[in-house]
């Protein structure tokens, strides 16, 4: 193994340990924990045993393992951007709802407080 592979796989192993601890402490759901463990383990395999990604890439009709990793990364980022966008919009809408309800419950609130 190259020094980079050792460092990267060690880092992923630590992150995986944190993920397991987060599930154990119920900070994330088991489903979310399983998803992230899958991501970390896939990353470790891709880095430590590139031949595996080459084999998977060829099975999918992609010439190089590195290309497969690139495509999957781009896809994951786009999906992540979309999901994040949806979540942010939902949170923004909820904030507006709270701010509105507060405003409607206290008409003239600031003026009254000021004077």
């Amino acid at each position, binding site marked *: 193994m190259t020094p980079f592979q050792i460092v990267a796989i060690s880092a992923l192993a630590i992150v995986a340990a944190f993920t397991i601890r987060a599930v154990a402490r119920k900070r994330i759901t088991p489903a979310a924990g399983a998803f992230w463990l899958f991501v970390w383990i896939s990353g470790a395999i891709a880095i430590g045993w590139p031949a595996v990604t080459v084999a998977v890439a060829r099975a999918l009709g992609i010439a190089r393992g590195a290309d497969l990793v690139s495509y999957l990364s781009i896809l994951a980022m786009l999906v992540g951007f979309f999901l994040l966008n949806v979540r942010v919009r939902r949170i923004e*809408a909820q904030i507006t709802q709270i*701010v509105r309800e507060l*405003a*409607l419950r206290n008409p*003239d609130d600031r*003026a009254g407080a000021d004077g």
Partner: protein
Amino acid sequence: MTAARPAAGSAATSLPAIASKGVSVVVAAFREEQTIAETVRSLRRLGLDVIVVDDGSEDETGRIARQEGATVLTHIVNRGQGAALQTGVRFALARGAAYIVTFDADGQHQSEDVAGILAPLLRGESDVTLGSRFLRPNEVPWFRRVVLKTGIVFTRLASGIRVTDTHNGLRGFTRRAAATIDIRLDRMAHASEILDQIARSGLRWVEVPVEISYTDYSRSKGQSSLGGLRVVWDFLMGRWLR
């Protein structure tokens, strides 16, 4: 055919007569301490009920508006003009308003135009009145004109509504129309959203000419022309992600 345009927009009905008909004017204001006093005063002079939604201003906007006789609702943090208008409209409806007018806080609108906005509603000819700066000679800065005209084309394509002005904050609604329209886009895209909802809900609408006065202040407060891109983005995301 639910749409009719352009309307005479006459101020045939006098404002004192209108004021007795349960009209609430909703003004969304964010950091408008320089102009809010005159805006509220000009509307109050006509005997109109004024609701100012102070949208998280850190300055004296809310206090000044209250001093001038407006009912002030306070957003504790800034949520955008669309959110503020929706808050004001909900409050006006809860208070029993028969007609609701939206009016900008930055001094661009003329209170005298409110009569023209309300006239078609009072005559029962429309459910919504939209102010248009392009129905009478109006000095619109050329770049602004280009941006607004692009907005008109976009609105026609996106919503199929053939208006002559898209981002004009001076509008009037009957109670039923105001209750039908639910502004969900918090920021500037609400103007496109309102038109979209009018088109989809089959509300009768009419445009009337109104005057917009461009001052250095109002230009500095208005959205940048590049902000138009964000409006398009927000509008499309709002439609697709609903």
